[in-house]
């Protein structure tokens, strides 16, 4: 009878269950060395970087034979949700990748280990990292992570489309006006070609130009929004004008359908502000590899700064082995780890003089500019609870992109919502 088969499979399943032990039981095994064997869980979200990170982990295990590291790749779509839930529940990883913008609740909850002593013990000179990125992971002079890598934004362009239009390639002396005038010359509606892409993307587009115009996203003390600053509005209008005033970029709907990078790679856009992190993808694509190149960001009214961002490695205070977890977190961002990552070509290692291998990995692009721009970079803006306002940016700025509201109106609404969220932070 079918029913019998069902009960049988049930018994089978129960039998299997009996064989399943509870998690994290590995801590007591006697190790090969003299001390006890320790297991640490380390969570990341990028399958692309997994080989390089595994190499760093291997190097760590070689130096610390009594420690075994379990590398866990959590899907990007649910990484932050899973990390917050499990670490707040006391069952999260010992060490994990962190972004400055996500740091807030963890710091507020005292969930992270201070790393300063471990950094000093490891003999790492913190001056070797881009200064703004180090500050990104510090609160009240306590360091909770060191940057493991960084990315800056450059002006990528399609040489083939510039050649066709008979224009000279962009150079580091360009200003905003050069971008607009060239984009106009490059735009060819009949061929479905646009001069530039103007997606609503904070890190790649409007954060950079807000600072280049002399504005700010958030005040230096992190208590008020800078969106209603006329300079910030100018920095946003640079992009919305490309769509609504000059018609040199596809509209926001188009970018929602097909992400700007995909449009750029298909030859539909002649220029795109985007990050060093796409070098790998462009290099592995035949068309992009042959036709793309990159230069420094064009200068705005005040400056030509770029936004810099980078992942950090944090250790959790709830770890059963806090000392070793801190060691691992620091090692993962160490000069040695930086070198291994640069060698892999996947990301720019964060430590000075370890980045040449990354530049060499892309002889077809002038990616040196991403390193050169570090000196004139501003750090990705954050507050104690960044997501409380950052998660409203795209919704409230959308009307400016679609032309339903002026940039003043949209930015004003965003400033109001942001100030409300910041006030709640303080309260």
């Amino acid at each position, binding site marked *: 009878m079918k029913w019998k088969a069902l009960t049988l499979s049930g018994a089978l399943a129960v039998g299997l269950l009996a064989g399943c032990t509870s998690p994290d039981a590995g801590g007591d095994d006697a190790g090969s060395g003299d001390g006890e064997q320790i297991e640490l*869980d380390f969570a990341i979200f990028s399958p692309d970087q997994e080989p390089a990170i595994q190499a760093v982990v291997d190097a760590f295990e070689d130096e610390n034979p009594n420690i075994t590291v379990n590398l866990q790749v959590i899907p990007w779509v649910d990484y932050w949700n899973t990390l917050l839930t499990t670490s707040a529940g006391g069952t999260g990883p010992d060490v994990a990748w962190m972004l400055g913008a996500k740091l807030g609740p963890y710091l507020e909850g005292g969930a992270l280990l201070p790393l300063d002593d471990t950094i000093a013990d490891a003999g790492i000179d913190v001056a070797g990292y881009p200064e703004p990125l180090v500050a990104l992971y510090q609160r009240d002079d306590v360091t909770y992570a060191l940057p493991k890598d960084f990315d800056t934004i450059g002006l990528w362009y399609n040489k083939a489309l510039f050649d066709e239009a008979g224009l000279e390639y962009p150079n580091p002396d360009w200003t905003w006006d050069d971008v607009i005038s060239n984009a106009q010359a490059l735009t060819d509606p009949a061929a479905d070609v646009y001069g530039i892409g103007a997606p609503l993307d904070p890190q790649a587009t409007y954060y950079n130009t807000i600072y280049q115009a002399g504005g700010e996203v958030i005040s230096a003390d992190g208590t008020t929004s800078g969106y209603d600053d006329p300079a910030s509005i100018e920095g946003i209008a640079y992009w919305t004008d490309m769509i609504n005033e000059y018609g040199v970029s596809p509209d926001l709907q188009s970018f929602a359908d097909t992400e700007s990078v995909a449009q750029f790679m298909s030859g539909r856009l002649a220029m795109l502000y985007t990050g060093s992190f796409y070098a790998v993808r462009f290099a592995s694509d035949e068309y992009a590899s042959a036709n793309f190149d990159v230069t420094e960001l064009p200068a705005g009214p005040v400056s030509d700064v770029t936004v810099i961002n980078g992942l950090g490695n944090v250790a959790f205070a709830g770890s059963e082995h806090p000392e070793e977890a801190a060691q691992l977190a620091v090692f993962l961002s160490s000069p040695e780890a930086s070198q291994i990552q640069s060698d892999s070509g996947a990301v720019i290692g964060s430590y000075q003089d370890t980045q040449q291998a990354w530049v060499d990995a892309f002889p077809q692009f002038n990616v040196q500019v991403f390193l050169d721009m570090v000196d004139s970079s501003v750090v990705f803006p954050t507050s104690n609870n960044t997501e409380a306002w950052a998660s409203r940016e795209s919704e409230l700025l959308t009307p400016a992109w679609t032309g339903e509201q002026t940039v003043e109106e949209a930015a004003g609404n965003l400033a109001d919502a942001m100030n409300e969220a910041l006030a709640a932070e303080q309260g």
Partner: protein
Amino acid sequence: MPEGVGRGATRAPLRVGRAVSYVVLTVGALLMVAPFLWQFLTSVKSLRESTVAPPVIWPSTWHWENYARIFDVLPVETMAVNSVLALILRVTGQVLVASLAAYCFARLRFPFQRALLTLFLATLMVPPQLFIIPQYEVIRDLGWLNTIQALAVPGIFSSFGMFILYQFMRALPVELDEAARLDGANPWQIYRRVILPLCLPALAAVVIMTSLFSWNDLLWPLVINTDPSRMTLPVGLATLQGAQGTDYPVLMAGSLLAILPMVVIFVLLQKQFIRGIAMSGSK
């Protein structure tokens, strides 16, 4: 069903109607299947062809190796074993729990019956995302994180199966219980020997739907199982979606492979499935 019963003078219009039916059904079926054809075509494209705009419909070269690459980038065997174990446990548990509850509500009479029934059915209305954090905390406190049983509960206690079985059981004639009781059987024996064997079609429906829920579950396994050796198929596939770019051909190949077992289960059980729902639906 034999053809020609009750057909008389209406033969000609029937034939026209039949032709129209085939056309409508076939067009509808094509619409239902078209996205899968697209998925299949994408699964044999190169990465560039899969993301290029405008899209390429027919792959220029067929990259069958995308199917092999799944096995390189993901521990498919482990994932499949975990998915199957979780499915077996969840289906078995759900069938047991649901049939017991359904039996009580459909065939017994006891205090607070109506209130309890309403309570059980009300849980059907809970979107799975809503209780994920408190449910996670329960699993953690049980010490079940990173185990197969954690994957199966709370799905085992879903009221879905009870709902189907309850409808089915209350349509069975009262005389069954009465006769058994006169023979001296107690409610447990009636449940085991009389009622349950009659519920096979409805059980098939519960098995199919629960299998589907279990097989495709994503959010829950992610939160309770972070150990890579406990990863299920949908979680593994989700890791292919990166922050900067997704390998769509491999993702499509993987998800096509992943749905195959469910299609087979449906094909095998579909007659039972329909009969089960028909009999529970006939009041």
